[in-house]
């Protein structure tokens, strides 16, 4: 397994080992422990910045030496980028994960990748917020869009697999139950069910909802239908007019050339 993924997945595994217990076959490697301190975390150094703009006259080392290491500081390293990247105007990043690549991955891999992407996203959001605070440009903001797209595609793949399994086993097209209902204004809509701890006849707020239409609304419904039909007719007419104008303008052009 390449060191790159191993390092990433392992740092993730270490997080998991705190909460759940997973047996990982991969050998453990020490992460890059950030020796420079995060002065944001201390109340005494509020002017520290990731982007090396404010120097405050004192060197970073001097500021850091004043603080002592403590237990509560560890674990927040993940919110910050690697030290060589601090102060760089651009940071190199690869292409986002494509749906085709993600489809070949097992559930565990996808699960681990989700958290790797989430941590990277949190890190980038921290950088973005710090850049806003310092009123400078965030270095390489396209990294955020890449992460967001990768996460969206991952979610799509998981949904695809769930949909397929559900269709196969139950034949249900939707994961969440629902039904067609009429609201008080006579409009038919898809009502999605919610999960409650009490039955509907004991739920006072639910009983106040009205999924029926009274007789006096009929004339308004009729007017709505009429206006809908009128707008469809107008749209059709507009389309025909558009086609006619295009024919007139561009067939004349092709006739002359």
């Amino acid at each position, binding site marked *: 397994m390449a060191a*790159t993924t191993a390092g990433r997945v392992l740092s993730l595994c270490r997080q998991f080992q705190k909460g*759940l217990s997973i047996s990982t076959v991969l050998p453990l490697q020490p992460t890059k422990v950030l020796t420079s301190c995060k002065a944001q975390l201390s109340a005494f150094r509020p002017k520290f910045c990731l982007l090396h703009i404010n120097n405050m006259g004192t060197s970073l080392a001097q500021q850091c030496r004043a603080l002592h290491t403590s237990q509560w500081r560890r674990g927040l390293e993940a919110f910050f980028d690697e030290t060589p990247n601090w102060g760089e105007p651009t940071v190199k*990043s*690869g292409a986002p994960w494509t749906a085709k690549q993600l489809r070949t991955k097992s559930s565990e891999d996808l*699960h681990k990748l989700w958290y790797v992407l989430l941590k990277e996203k949190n890190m980038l959001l921290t950088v973005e917020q710090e850049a806003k605070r310092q009123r400078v440009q965030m270095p390489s903001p396209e990294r955020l869009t890449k992460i967001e797209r990768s996460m969206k595609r991952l979610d799509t793949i998981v949904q695809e697999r769930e949909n397929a399994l559900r269709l196969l086993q139950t034949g249900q097209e939707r994961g969440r139950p629902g039904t067609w209902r009429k609201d008080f204004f006579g409009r038919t809509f898809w009502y999605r069910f919610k999960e409650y701890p*009490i039955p509907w006849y004991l739920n006072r707020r639910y009983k106040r909802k009205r999924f029926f239409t009274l007789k006096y609304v009929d004339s308004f419904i009729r007017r709505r239908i009429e206006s809908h039909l009128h707008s469809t007719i107008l749209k059709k007419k507009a389309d025909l007019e558009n086609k006619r104008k295009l024919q007139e*303008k561009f067939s004349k052009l092709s006739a002359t050339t």
Partner: protein
Amino acid sequence: MRLTALLAMAARVKVPPDYRYGTSRPWTVGAQRMNPPGKKRRKVFVEPIQPEEWSLFKGDTVEVLAGKDSGKQGKISQVIRARNWVILEGLNTHYRYIGKSGEYRGTYIASESPLLVREVALIDPSDRKPTQVEWRFTEEGERVRVSLRSGRILPKPVVQRRDGIVPEQWKDGPKDTSPDDALEKTYSASLKTFEEEIAEATGVVETRAGRRTFWY
């Protein structure tokens, strides 16, 4: 998930159906100044060209057939499909001042005007003359542009990526997955749901039975 989808939708620029596309792209400040949300302009009729039929790409060398610089050849620097426009480098220019402030009149620059696709023609590389082009399939099954006069294939121009990355010279960073790992297949179809597989892999055993809930 739904909230993130909503937020993502808000980030993308929403353009009304009768939007008039200009030389500035819709998300730029200039375009937003030209087309503020309530503005309605006279409709511009654009010749309907099918996406399969479109044969002009950024980086192509074309000859101008009509207009001020007719007869000259230039490289396409921008294509605006919504108006069937093509902007060539340094051709069909008008002059204007840019960066005016206070008393300073600004820099005098030449800015290119867009040309319609019917006013330009692709150049046949064999005789360097304008020619009509058709899309045809090669014996391998590849779809290519073929010049109708000489039958020569016009290759699609290689344009540098906007981020300056050359895929052949790319070196993976510490956070990048190697191509082998990215393409490695670890998926095996099973009748377990995603949650069940993760619970199995992590050794989570749920013995609690949830309380009775009602769906309505």
